[in-house]
């Protein structure tokens, strides 16, 4: 199918994009990489009157250092992120997770901003950004505000980005030297996560000094496995110790039940994948 007819605007600055959104009101929709929005429009699940394409706004694309953080423009594609040495060095968890998103064609188009605002609970981008204590820069008519990832995801497909606002950048505190792994469980190639675990650890010799863990598809938003994080701090990086800590990975989660698995199955998966992800992140 093809989308219902719409007006198309392709501004070249954030200010012009905000103006176009204000003019379009409720009937305007932002287009980033289009890898989620275009299927939605084609299935006519949504039929905006105006589509505001951010694809021509150069300022929204790219990765730079800003003191102890990386600043990633919202329109930076998965492929740009995967090719970035800065991301590999300072946010290895983002690299590991994004390598597991969809397929190469979709990674050439899809953007970090689009993925985060789309906020599909099975999406692979939220958990690593949450685990790394990322911050989201949202720009609206009144200027810029910064929201912690922990407050950004509000519910299924719902974020702190309001009507008439844009997500413009993602700030990731540098985690230089941290090991990272993303364990994504799927049954067939090219599937959305049934459950996935994003783990990054700072090692001190053979000991895990600090661990941060994000869970994908264990609730309506990405979640942190805080109980596991506390149990791992100062723990030996052995299969026994990590396995014991990982046993509480599903604590406080509310995973969905669907054709891919019921909630109990997902809780079990979360513990197994957490153990694997932490051990892999620790280089074990």
């Amino acid at each position, binding site marked *: 199918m093809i989308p219902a007819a719409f007006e198309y605007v392709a501004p070249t600055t954030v200010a012009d994009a905000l103006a176009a959104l204000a003019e379009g009101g409720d009937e305007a929709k932002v287009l980033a990489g289009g890898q989620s929005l275009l299927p939605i429009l084609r299935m006519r699940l949504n039929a905006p009157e105006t589509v505001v394409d951010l694809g021509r706004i150069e300022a929204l694309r790219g990765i730079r250092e800003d003191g102890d953080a990386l600043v990633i423009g919202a329109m930076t594609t998965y492929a740009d992120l995967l090719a970035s040495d800065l991301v590999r060095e300072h946010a290895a968890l983002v690299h590991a997770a994004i390598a597991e998103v969809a397929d190469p*064609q979709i990674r050439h188009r899809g953007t970090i901003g689009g993925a985060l605002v789309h906020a599909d609970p099975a999406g692979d981008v939220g958990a690593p950004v949450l685990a790394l204590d990322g911050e989201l820069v949202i720009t609206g008519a009144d200027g810029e505000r910064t929201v912690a990832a922990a407050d950004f995801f509000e519910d299924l497909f719902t974020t702190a980005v309001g009507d008439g606002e844009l997500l413009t950048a993602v700030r990731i505190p540098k985690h230089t030297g941290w090991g990272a792994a993303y364990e994504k469980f799927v049954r067939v*190639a090219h599937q959305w996560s049934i459950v996935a675990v994003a783990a990054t650890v700072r090692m001190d010799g053979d000991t895990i000094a600090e661990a941060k863990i994000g869970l994908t598809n264990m609730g309506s938003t990405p979640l942190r496995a805080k109980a596991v994080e506390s149990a791992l701090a100062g723990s030996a990086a052995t299969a026994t110790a990590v396995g014991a800590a990982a046993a509480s990975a599903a604590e406080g989660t509310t995973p969905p039940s669907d054709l891919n698995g019921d909630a109990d199955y997902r809780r079990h998966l979360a513990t197994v994948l957490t153990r694997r992800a932490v051990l892999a992140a620790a280089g074990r």
Partner: protein
Amino acid sequence: MTRITVTVDGQRFVDDVEPRTLLVSYLRENLGKVGTVVGCDTSNCGACTVHLDGRSVKSCNVLAVQADGHEVTTIEGISTAGGLHPMQQAFHECHALQCGYCTPGMIMQAIDILTDNPDPSEEEIRAGLEGNLCRCTGYHNIVKAVAQCAAAGKGGE
């Protein structure tokens, strides 16, 4: 209608299109480039894969207006004056197709794999073709064709 200027397979086109026109529809219906096919409604199958500024995309999941000012290469634009593109030749020699429906997309994606990685492992070839479905071959000969083309050292564009 929105006016777009797109270079497709080396030729420049200026056209007025409805913004909702998908790139694949523009290629097939406006330009008659029916070598690029549509195999699904969900952007899963990869049959419609083309290159946009040299990188693979699913042309059913891009609007024609998004390609304005850019360069598109389709399966119809890769053969050389001398004949088949080396990847086409490798598919031919390895018997990498049966019905052939997935083939245009497979070949465009296979070329993309070698652009990044001229010497991929079998695993890397399989991962690189993750977004391309084939209902006939079982993939085995497709993977062989990509490996053969890579080994000949002339895969990427």
